[in-house]
């Protein structure tokens, strides 16, 4: 169709045609234009914010950020503060528990939902609805459920089982597990939904093959289907991980970091220091420490991907 070819022909050859470039990388200006909000956000918000956070972590900024550098003093204090050490320990435990249990429980629910059950819609809605609640609300509700004088414990004792005990939040050894439970209640439904979607995406022939081979259903789920759901697992993993690293609201609502400082987490440390404790420098040092493992993870992931691509390219 010659008219189309002629119509745009002149415009299609950009200014670079002036010199005989033989190797040309097309610059998609429209693509850049379309993603301008992303560019601004990525560079203008995240990169700049992170750079400033790191810079301020070397200053003695108080209420507002300043540039009076004090070297590593903030970090020195950070790593000799019990509360920070406990916070780090807690976020690791919280993260490990909620991710492992979230994945396992979520996958189990998805598998059971996948048994051509009746009322699938109803069950799915029941498992999903807590995610519609904010973490603050989740925390409030579970704090109340776990209140020794009002909640489940009191209710069970009232019906006669007087030695019954279920008040994890009042004990510093168990409080964190109570928070984990609240978090699971909120988030497992989404993991379930992602896993279920992953299950439904697995080729039906896999099932036929497994059935013919006489592999028990549970083994098929565990050893054949699960490894095929890399995408679903990755999505659920990222979603959960962002929640874990930033965990804040639910702890505030359930325990406020207590009893004592036993359920403190890094995000609360950061936030309290940059707001009410008016020590932005200290808060930023903590924030920088929080970002470090994530940065590491992304760099490693990027290197792995790059390497894989290179190998693929060679083959």
């Amino acid at each position, binding site marked *: 169709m010659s008219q189309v070819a002629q119509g745009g022909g002149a415009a299609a050859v950009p200014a670079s045609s002036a010199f005989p470039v033989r190797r040309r990388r097309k610059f*998609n200006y*429209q*693509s850049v234009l379309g*993603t301008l*909000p*992303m*560019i601004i*956000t990525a*560079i203008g*918000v*995240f990169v*700049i*914010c*992170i750079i400033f956070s790191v810079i301020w972590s070397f200053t003695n900024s108080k209420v*507002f*950020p300043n540039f009076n550098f004090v070297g590593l003093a903030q970090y020195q204090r950070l790593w000799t503060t019990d509360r920070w050490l406990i916070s780090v320990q807690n976020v690791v435990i919280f993260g490990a528990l909620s991710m492992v249990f979230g994945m396992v429980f979520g996958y189990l*629910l998805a598998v*059971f*939902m996948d048994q051509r*059950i009746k009322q699938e819609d109803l*069950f*799915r*809605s*029941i498992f*999903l*609805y807590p*995610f*519609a*609640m*904010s973490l*603050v*609300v989740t925390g*409030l*509700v579970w704090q*109340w*459920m776990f209140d020794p004088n009002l909640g489940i414990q*009191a*209710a069970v004792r009232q019906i006669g089982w007087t030695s019954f005990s279920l008040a994890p939040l009042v004990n510093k050894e168990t409080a964190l597990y109570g928070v984990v439970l609240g978090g699971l*209640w909120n988030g497992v439904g989404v993991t379930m*939904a*992602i896993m279920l*979607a992953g299950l439904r*995406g697995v080729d039906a022939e896999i099932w036929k093959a497994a059935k013919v081979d006489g592999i028990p259903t549970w083994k098929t789920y565990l050893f054949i289907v699960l490894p095929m*759901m890399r*995408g*679903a697992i990755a*999505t659920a993993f*990222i*979603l959960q991980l*962002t929640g874990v*690293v*930033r965990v804040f*609201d639910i702890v505030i609502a359930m325990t406020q970091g207590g009893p004592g400082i036993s359920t403190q987490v890094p*995000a609360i440390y950061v*936030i309290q220091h*940059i707001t009410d404790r008016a020590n*932005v420098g200290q808060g930023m040092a903590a*924030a920088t420490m929080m*970002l470090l493992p994530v940065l590491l993870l*992304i760099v490693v992931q990027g290197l792995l991907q790059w390497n894989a691509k290179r190998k693929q390219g060679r083959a």
Partner: protein
Amino acid sequence: MSTNALPLSQPIVDGPRGAKPKRITPARIGVYAFLVLSALFFLLPLWVMIVTSLKGMPEIRLGHLFNWPAELTFDPWIKAWDTACTGRDCNGLKPGFWNSVKITLLSVPVSIVVAMINGYALSFWRYKGSELLFAVLIFGAFVPYQVVIYPLIIGLREVGLFATLPGIVVVHTIFGMPILTLLYRNFFASLPAELFKAGRVDGAGFWGIFFRIMLPMSVPITIVAVILQTTGIWNDFLFGTVFAGRENMPMTVQLNNIVTTTTGIREYNVNMAATILTAAVPLVVYFVSGKWFVRGIAAGAVKG
């Protein structure tokens, strides 16, 4: 019928024939037992919230957390919606509700359209550095919100958007971007590249392919995005207090004012009613569109 005379167990022919009888196996019972028990775990708090919100305070003090109210009252709901005090104003949650509606209705579409274009560009129109930008964005998904608040305040102040409705929309767009972009990028990457090529042969450009081919195809994943964003933005407290401006304070701020303070006895029933009222919109969204949620995720988000 003469067959009635025959005992049912008597075989008519040798060996099995016809449709295999559907039996209730122990495994089947196990499946339902697990699901029902799980459902109880998920429903228990909601049940407690509902019954508590329908009780009077004297009855709450008696305990009996799980019991249906002996004396049903809707006063806590009326109070939470209409008359509970949040500072000097005693108008309940009502005014904040409309602010939240406003913020959500504006922020959800804007943030989704931006993320959609990002995902589309990252899948089909990569340019030098676009992958790096994406990595930064994903990194941003892990940044505690509070860390970026100070620079963001200064930035928005400079462009004159601090404490305005457009300001809060911008903030929600920024913080929704990482996960939504990831969602859309995965979705578009799962579409056949030939579709994109066909579009280019047909003469459609960046926007032509986006609006006329990709946009209509991304309905399933967009449902997921809408659900996630509606929930996230509706439930937001932090950004609302800082960036929305006094006139646009969302419902969650008022919920916080009602729930975190009371003199004397905490009015648990009002708190619970207020909590349910605040969560009502996302809850409805979930119950109505839960089915499409799983389908939408299946449509692309789970493909690695």
